[in-house]
């Protein structure tokens, strides 16, 4: 189970490094989803060698031209928010694998982030207040713990966070 302190350390919506590190062992939620370990993580997609279309996650064929000639493509770390919503209730398990209960569930943001010249990616957002999200705002990729597994290790997943005006 996640403790309250653990959660608040991972849900910093707008600041901090690109990767939330801890002393625990950190394992990606899936292989071949994002580059790991690194301080400049990138999502892994695929690009069609015939028509250039990029898909995420990577797949063995092109949904546009049906070609099976595809290569791996590392996606840009930054993009803009194309649309968003918030998840205000605990999703059903399965498939949801978060370990919160209905009582300690904290809403999270979900959106599509447009990665220029590549693809739009659906992602959890670190910001869950709809009034602090707006279509067109710049976003960047972060890798953060999603839950802890049976062994107590951290399962890492991706999210996008608003880029602060600097």
């Amino acid at each position, binding site marked *: 189970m996640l403790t309250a302190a653990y959660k608040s350390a991972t849900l910093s919506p707008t600041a901090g490094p690109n990767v939330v590190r801890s002393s625990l062992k950190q394992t990606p*939620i*899936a292989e071949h*989803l994002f580059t790991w370990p690194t301080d400049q993580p990138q999502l892994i*997609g695929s690009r069609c060698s015939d028509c250039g*279309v990029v*898909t*995420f*996650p990577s797949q063995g064929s092109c*949904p*546009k031209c049906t070609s099976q000639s595809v290569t791996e493509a590392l996606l840009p770390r930054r993009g803009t928010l*194309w*649309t*968003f*919503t*918030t*998840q*205000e*209730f605990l*999703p*059903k398990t*399965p*498939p*949801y*694998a*978060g370990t919160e209960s209905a009582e300690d569930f904290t809403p*999270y943001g*979900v*959106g*599509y982030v*447009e990665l220029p*010249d*590549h*693809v*739009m*990616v*659906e*992602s*959890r957002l670190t910001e869950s207040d*709809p009034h602090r999200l707006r*279509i067109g705002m710049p976003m960047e990729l972060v890798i953060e713990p*999603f839950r802890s597994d049976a062994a107590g290790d951290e399962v890492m*997943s991706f999210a996008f966070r608003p880029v602060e005006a600097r």
Partner: protein
Amino acid sequence: MDVAIIGIGIHPFGRFDGMSGLDLGEVAARRALSDAGLAWSDMEFAFGGSIDGGYADSLVSRLGLTGIPFTNVSNGCATGGSALAMAVNRIQANESDLGLVVGFDKHPRGAFAADPASLGLPQWYGETGMMLTTQFFAMKIQRYMHTYGISESSLTKVAAKAFRNGAMNPNSWRQKPVSEEEIAGSRLLNHPLTQYMLCSPNEGAAAVVLCRADQAARYTQRPVIVNGVALRTRLFGSFEVMAPSLPLEQAASPTAQAATACFEAAGIGPEDVDVAQLQDGEVGAEIMHMAENGLCADGDQEAMIQAGETEITGRLPINTDGGLIANGEPIGASALRQVHELVLQLRGDAGARQVPGEPRVGYAQVYGAPGTGCCTVLSR
């Protein structure tokens, strides 16, 4: 060859403890037969569908073992529409003259839970809490509101209309009007959608009896013609439910494609529609589907809704029976409920919610995961 609907039947939508999905389906099938003045033994074929309620073709053990071809149809939210399309095709192909289509369902309580693998999606997509249909609908209307200037007030008005119309429909789940204040103030589920703006899975059944239109006069004085039925799936670039990524280029939705094909087959245009039933899994879907079906231009909805044009007394009444919001969504039955309501409206039998002016053309549309649209044009 034209195909006519000569009988309709429905089991009310809601929650019915102690009744199985097949029990509900049997009630709807018998009511449709009785409405047509026919017996099960007169049927030459049947199509039926249910997602959680059991195999439709097992109804033969109750209705009678007459040996006819009875085909189960499973096509998500478009199950009922697909079954209807197949029945129409069968009659048009001269394989049969007369048959029944039935759809029913009985879903567990709460939002639909989905298995990522069964939809060809990676496990992490479901694990991280992104595989919820309501998120998609919220994100689609969020973008649409931003692009076309649709207000939150219009979302609220669409929900209030659904509950008001549902209260006039003895077969609907929600029997009480809900005020706009209550709708706007109800629990936020997926911004901008609140609890009363979304439909829930439930239970119910609907059925129709169809025949060759040139034989319809044998059975009824008030046949309703199926002028067109069309089903379409995703194109590259359409924004669909449960998509871990979207291409940068955009394409017409399955609904828009199906609508175009359906109107073309019918030789009837969207401007001729007198009453429409659209997939309103949530209020935003009704608004966006108005344009996707060609019933208005993108952005026109705001003025139309604010002026009450989609009310029963308006220029283009939509979801006169309360739609999915007031009826809930037993998937297998949902599209046939729309057809049931349109037939009542075209016959002039819709009672308190009858559209004035003797409507002639009715239109129905369903949409579902993973990106399927099915449209039907009916006329009298």
